[in-house]
């Protein structure tokens, strides 16, 4: 990691003091002498002092060099500083505990306990070389010590547990157990120190499990994170709780080599299956998967980093020409995918059922949406639940004549447009299936509307984009003789307008979406049977 002398000096003093403290704790375990215990406790003041010096210097250093790079480096020093202080506090706790019950000390004089203390001592000795090293391998070794220490402590704890069952000398046994717990916690502290050094090398905080996943997946690219050939940068969290990081080579000048996604195993397995299915169904649209690594309930996926922008970016940039070009490339691609994948199968998307399931989550964020039925001199307006029920009945008779392979979560964020190559790619493919194409289009339209930008020019472009998507869908509907397109679109839009409000905290914006959902439902319910097939979505609802 980056050596900053002003910060590294107090850190080294801190390590030396902590080593002395641990040495005295070990000696106290061996001899049980009160004087040794006191001497170990006396180190705490020195340690607190160095800790404070480092904190002050870190603040001063950041004031002088506020660049992002030095912020990350300083954070690493602060992390190590805090972890070392915690270790010192745990040493102190061990001594207090053992002092209060001398007989506990006797039964702790076991080989395994001394081994654990030796591991801790070895860990402290490795910190400086690990910090100064070009590689992360020593830091990983520090992390590994935790496993050894845990094993030794657990073994002893089991022994004490058995004796506790006899019901004799319980106080002494409990005391000894607490000491073992503290030693075990110090192993955890070492782990955090190791993680801190690895994170400093990578340029981002990372936990050791994630690091191992990263290492395992990167081997597919012949990259080794231990050799500091790369850094990672957070790209954000997904709604499903996965973390996304961009992997960059140290000499690639910020160019992303791959995307590393880590999280729940079932979710990532779905995503991998989704990507693979797209490679079969329509090659070239999904990112390449470099590797997949499973680790218990967690998994990691390393895949191709796609260059380009999301359509949200194009909308916010107000570049109408590029937006138009991108949209029509998207439409052309969709037309091709749909033609290539269409199957002769009537498929109902059940928009109202989908919406019904989401209602509790929507009301949890916006309780004011749960309106009662009203009646003003005979003009009625139904509750949302009643509207959904009535629309569900209407929907029963509707289905797409030909199902196609759809994305399944077709938000603006999940489409990448590369304007140089003039091509689109899809990401986040864990919900793809043969379905009604209107599902994808309605989700896409509402993800446009949902953008929390209220610049009139942007809003106008959003409305025009929604209209373009609608018109493109209508054109395709004509081709496949799909005569209930507009009705299903109204239902799909209602579903997405309303269910998306649970991610929209701006009351005004959420209200506008809620009202649009209601309006569309009320409107199609008012249609007489002969007007059902001529129905068109009023374009005004795309505007604010």
């Amino acid at each position, binding site marked *: 990691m980056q050596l900053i002398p002003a910060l590294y000096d107090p850190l080294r003093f801190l390590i030396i003091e902590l080593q002395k403290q641990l040495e005295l704790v070990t000696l106290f375990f061996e001899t049980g002498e009160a004087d040794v215990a006191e001497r170990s406790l006396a180190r705490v003041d020195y340690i607190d002092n160095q800790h404070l010096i480092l904190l002050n210097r870190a603040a001063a250093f950041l004031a002088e060099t506020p660049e992002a790079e030095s912020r990350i480096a300083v954070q690493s020093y602060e992390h190590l500083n805090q972890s070392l202080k915690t270790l010192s506090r745990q040493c102190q706790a061990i001594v207090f505990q053992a002092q209060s019950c001398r007989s506990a000390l006797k039964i702790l004089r076991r080989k395994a306990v001394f081994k654990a203390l030796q591991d801790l001592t070895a860990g402290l000795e490795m910190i400086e070389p690990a910090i100064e090293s070009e590689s992360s391998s020593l830091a990983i070794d520090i992390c590994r010590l935790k496993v050894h220490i845990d094993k030794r402590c657990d073994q002893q704890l089991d022994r004490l547990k058995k004796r506790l069952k006899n019901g004799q000398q319980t106080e002494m046994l409990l005391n000894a157990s607490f000491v073992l717990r503290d030693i075990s916690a110090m192993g955890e502290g070492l782990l955090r120190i190791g993680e801190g050094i690895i994170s400093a090398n990578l340029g981002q905080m990372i936990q050791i499990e994630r690091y191992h996943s990263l290492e395992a997946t990167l081997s597919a690219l012949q990259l080794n994170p231990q050799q500091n050939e790369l850094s990672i940068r957070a790209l954000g969290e997904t709604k499903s709780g996965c973390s996304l990081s961009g992997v960059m080579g140290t000499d690639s000048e910020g160019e992303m080599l791959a995307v590393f996604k880590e999280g729940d195993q079932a979710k990532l397995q779905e995503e991998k299956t989704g990507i693979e299915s797209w490679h079969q169904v329509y*090659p070239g649209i999904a990112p390449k998967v470099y590797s997949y690594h499973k680790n218990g309930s967690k998994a990691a996926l390393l895949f191709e980093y796609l260059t380009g922008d999301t359509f949200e970016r194009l909308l916010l940039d107000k570049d109408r020409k590029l937006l138009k070009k991108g949209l029509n490339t998207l439409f052309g691609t969709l037309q091709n995918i749909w*033609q290539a994948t269409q199957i002769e199968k009537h498929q109902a998307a059940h928009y109202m059922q989908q919406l019904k399931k989401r209602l509790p989550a929507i009301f949890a964020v916006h309780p004011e949406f749960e309106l009662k039925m009203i009646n003003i001199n005979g003009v009625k307006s139904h509750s949302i639940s009643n509207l959904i029920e009535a629309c569900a009945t209407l929907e029963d008779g509707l289905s797409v004549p030909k199902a196609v392979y759809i994305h399944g979560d077709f938000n603006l964020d999940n489409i990448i447009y590369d304007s140089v190559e003039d091509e689109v790619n899809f990401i986040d493919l864990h919900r793809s299936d043969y379905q009604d194409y209107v599902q994808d289009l309605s989700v896409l339209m509402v993800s446009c509307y949902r953008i929390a930008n209220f610049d009139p020019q942007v809003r*106008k472009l959003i409305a025009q984009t929604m209209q373009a998507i609608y*018109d493109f869908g209508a054109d395709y509907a004509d081709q496949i003789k799909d005569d209930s397109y507009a009705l299903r679109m109204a239902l799909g839009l209602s579903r997405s307008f309303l269910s998306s409000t649970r991610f929209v905290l701006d009351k005004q914006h959420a209200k506008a979406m809620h009202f649009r959902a209601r309006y569309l439902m009320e409107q199609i319910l008012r249609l007489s049977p002969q007007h059902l097939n001529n129905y068109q979505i009023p374009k005004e*609802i795309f505007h604010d």
Partner: protein
Amino acid sequence: MAKKTPYFEHESLQDKDTIISYLKAITQGFKKGAIKFSDEDENFVLTPQPFANLKIKATQSKKGQTLNIKINWSSDQDEDADDTPLFIDPKHPKKSNRSKKSS
């Protein structure tokens, strides 16, 4: 100096029939898409859009009853904006090596 934002307000005591004629005038304006407001100094036209937010509030207190009707809509200020459709009908993307031509 002229007022920056157009503003009109009127309040009076009226009989039921006159109130209905006011409401009718407003209803007519809605149908036509223009409601004219003027006093001796100013002329001001609201242009109701096909879609608007409608808020109806009825309250009762010891002093009396109140009916509030609020209708608001957004208006397109940007006359010069490009209104040509974004959807080009129905061309395929240039890079169409994986496409099948449709009729």
